[in-house]
């Protein structure tokens, strides 16, 4: 590799751009040995647009369902169609949206759960503190573009530029050899979740896989093109752009050689784009040894959940693909023997108003997050589920719920499970210290085993 080009375009730090071909074989094989014993990954599924998750998890007990039905009016699912979940939570039995049969099955088998009324907070927040403005609040409450960042970054009071996934991998140094970009793989392009201070992320197209530059067959083009990348007078934006090309070239070869060793999955996946992405993630997780990673994040967006109208119809259209994709993925993890080593969770901009606008629901705050995997101590819900009555003190208007659990609590449990040492937790979750020992930070410890 040309040294000057290395300096110019290795700006995501030189460490992140160790080309596969330059790795000593001994390093690769030692990484491989460790990976076999100790691989862990989280899969972040972003339901972009703000999924109406109070129609994904619904109370079934008579009184609680009655309240739900009364608050939701034309958006209420009928009680008989709910898929029952085993057990009770806070004295109430629950059910899932009729499309969520895989989640129901996994929940009842103890391999999945739902974290209830979880959302971004800066510090413990009560309705009274909210009304007197005596508490720091997330930027841009109820706004898509802000809350989607708050969820991805877990730094809702500022836009620090790094995300939870990126900082998570940053905090586990020495776990990954090979190409450090492989620590964060996105099936949905650039995202804030995987933005780290030390580690970058790598975007793969779920449909077409890893692309390589066709013109590189032509040696004169390749040689000249590589020289175009070494402009000593390149501007900042040109350098940013060029570094993306350089990672594409380096990582492209690396991933293609790894993917070439993949054994096709037996588990069938559907053909919709979410399932195709989940299948690609399953394949990549299965290649962790070849990729030299022992700690990994994956990111995928399934968008289109901003259901201001036709909530019931649109959820009935879209939830089956979500449920199938999550379920197929879990089956694939079992096939690969990685069931206990990969945990999948959903995030979304926000939950939505419980009350209807006559056609759909509007932007809210707290929502319900699904968590799946062999490590999940499932079969029970986590977090406080708000009573769906008009005068609930958590209701900040039209059934927008102040979160009863902070995003940080959910991420702290994921961090612990991934092996972040307790003293490093505050670098992964800068606001975690605000929540330790508070009700909005409690209740999720032990959700993941091991």
């Amino acid at each position, binding site marked *: 590799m040309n040294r000057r080009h290395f300096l110019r375009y290795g*700006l*995501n730090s030189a460490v992140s751009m160790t080309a596969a071909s330059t790795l000593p074989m001994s390093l690769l094989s030692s990484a491989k040995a460790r990976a076999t014993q100790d691989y862990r990954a989280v899969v972040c599924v972003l339901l*972009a647009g703000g999924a109406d998750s109070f129609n994904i998890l619904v109370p079934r007990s008579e009184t609680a369902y009655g309240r739900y039905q*009364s*608050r939701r*009016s*034309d958006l209420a699912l009928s009680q008989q169609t709910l898929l029952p979940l085993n057990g009770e939570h806070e004295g109430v039995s629950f059910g899932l949206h009729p499309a969520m049969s895989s989640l129901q099955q996994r929940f009842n088998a103890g391999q999945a759960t739902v974290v209830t009324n979880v959302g971004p907070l800066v510090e413990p927040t009560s309705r009274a503190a909210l009304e007197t403005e005596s508490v720091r609040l997330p930027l*841009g409450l*109820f*706004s*898509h*573009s*802000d809350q989607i960042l708050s969820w991805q970054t877990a730094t809702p009071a500022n836009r620090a*530029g790094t995300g939870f996934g990126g900082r998570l991998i940053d905090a586990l140094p020495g776990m990954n050899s090979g190409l450090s970009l492989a620590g964060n793989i*996105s099936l949905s*392009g*650039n995202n804030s979740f995987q933005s780290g201070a030390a580690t*970058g992320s790598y*975007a*793969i*197209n779920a449909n*077409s896989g890893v*692309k390589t*530059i*066709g*013109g590189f067959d032509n040696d*004169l083009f390749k040689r*000249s*093109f590589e*020289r*175009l*990348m070494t*402009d000593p*007078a*390149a*501007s*900042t*934006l*040109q*350098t*940013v*752009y*060029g570094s*993306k*090309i350089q990672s*594409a070239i380096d990582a492209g070869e690396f991933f293609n050689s790894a993917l070439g060793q993949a054994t096709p999955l037996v588990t069938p996946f559907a053909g919709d784009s979410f399932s195709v992405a989940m299948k690609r993630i399953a394949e990549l997780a299965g290649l962790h040894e070849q990729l030299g990673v022992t700690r990994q994040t994956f990111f995928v967006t399934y*968008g*289109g959940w*901003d259901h*201001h109208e036709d909530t019931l119809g649109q959820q009935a259209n879209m939830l089956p693909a979500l449920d199938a994709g999550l379920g197929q993925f879990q089956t694939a993890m079992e096939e690969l023997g990685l069931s206990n080593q990969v945990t999948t969770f959903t995030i979304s901009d926000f939950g939505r*108003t419980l*009350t*209807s*606008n*006559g*056609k759909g629901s*509007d*932007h809210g705050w707290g929502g319900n997050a699904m968590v799946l995997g062999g490590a999940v101590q499932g079969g029970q819900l986590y977090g406080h589920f708000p009573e769906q009555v008009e005068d609930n003190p958590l209701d*900040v208007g*039209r059934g927008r719920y102040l979160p009863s659990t902070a995003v940080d609590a959910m991420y702290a449990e994921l961090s612990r499970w991934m092996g972040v040492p307790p003293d490093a937790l505050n670098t992964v979750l800068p606001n975690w210290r605000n929540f330790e020992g508070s009700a909005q930070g409690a209740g999720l410890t032990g959700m993941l085993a091991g």
Partner: protein
Amino acid sequence: MMIRSFVAAVMLSVLAACGGGGGSSSGLPNVPDTGGGGAGGGGSTLPTEPTLEEYRDAALILDVATFGPRQSDIDAVAKTGVDDWLDTQFEMPITGHEPIVRRYGAQYGFDSQVSPVRPALYRRFAFFENALTAPDQLRQLTAYALTQLFVVSETGVLGNNPVGLSNYYDTLLAHSFGNYRDLLRAVTLHPAMGFYLSHVNNAKTDPVANTFPDENYAREVMQLFTIGLYELNPDGTHRLSSDGNPQPTYDNTDIREFAKIFTGLAYAGSADAEPRFGRNRAVLYAPMIMFDEYHESGEKYLLNNAVVPAGQSGIQDIEAAIDNLFNHPNVAPFVGKQLIQRLVTSNPSADYVGRVSSVFADNGTGVRGDLKAVIRAILTDPEVSTSSRIREPFRRFVAVNRALNASPVEGSDIGVTGFFVQNATGQMVLSAPSVFNFYSPFYRPQGGQGQISPEMQIITEDSVVGFINLMAQVLYTDSPMHNHSELAEMRLDLSELNLLVSDTETFLLQIERLFFAGTMSAHTHEVLATALDDAAGLSAQEQVKLVLYLALTSPDQAISERNVPR
């Protein structure tokens, strides 16, 4: 080097090449025709030729203000100057999109079961036809910029309604050089927006059914179309509170008040049916109409302590709310800065934003919101010459086709040029993933030293390679770029460049003007020149393709910015 006479020689040879007729089959195409050859102006009139710098200025303004420079346009603007070009562009008649969609409809029909081409594609054909050939380029590009501010997207019923989407595009075109208030009103009442942000069929509070007005449009019209989340100074910086914090422009109570304003609107329906709220046919080419009985009738509170009295008609309420937003001090810097970012540069100085914002506030004759004056202020600002912006891959593709005079191999449907490039470029007109567009105006890429670069948000390892391979396909492949056998293939016209390539400097000067806003870096120039040397054994056409492939995929070309002239 004797630059001026050298430039003149280039121009002469190009003119000769354009002139058709005998052409140059001598094998020495770029030897200047010293005899004058009917190309006007012999040696003695050299001083009237534009200077090298005037050519650079022309290339730059055409790069930022059109869908891409063509040689003939560069020549013309170099002669007349930027101001004259702007004057001319502002007065040009509008080239609409809907008539083109209807022309395809007349040809192939609108029934997807029957038509040989998916009717949803007609409005993409209309876009490419106009981007490539419409004379009113500045208006076409301004409207395109507005599609990224007032986003509607090809989803749901809109995906199958090319007439509705093209009508929406034409609404943006109609107001591109008009007043921002009229634009905001037209967008608010357009049924495509009504569908996309769900304020069509939005009913007033119903205490019995326990339903409330839809908050969607109320929120996004403030967050995205007019004032944004935080109070701004006229130069676009945050107006901070006494304790140093940004101050929100509105809260959720304001959203609920504005939601009441936008109740009662429904599709216009058809003349032969009884109008009924919520039941009218989804006509997407006529403004929505108001059903006052479904409009929230009580008093409503707007921003800055304005009150809408109870009992007004729905349209009166909407007018009042539009006035309230339009006159908010944020609109000028909020909209002005985003238009600067779309057209010119990603990180305008506060002074630049301030200059544009003051023109928005008052065009000099006391008119607020005069977009013609705003666009002129944006494009004639001194900061244009130091601009830096990642080119949208989608626009790079369009520009290549413009510069190299793409045409269909058979027939005349130039609109088929790019309907299929969504995967390779990460974009398609009116197809953003959400009302938040393809990228955020606040996006700061990793490694960018804090700079904002909205377009970088869609630049990934996958997409950079996708674009490089698209360029190879455009330049080299003989196989169809799309899988619609009923549609023609496009071919680029490399004949002019083929004539120039044997003179490296002349040829690269041409490449520089067409694709590098007038200035490529010394390094890029050196690499391309060396590649040309190394390719000496290839035919002229293959040499041209090689250099184009390198030039069009270089990091230098990916950024619209002025390099230090060599």
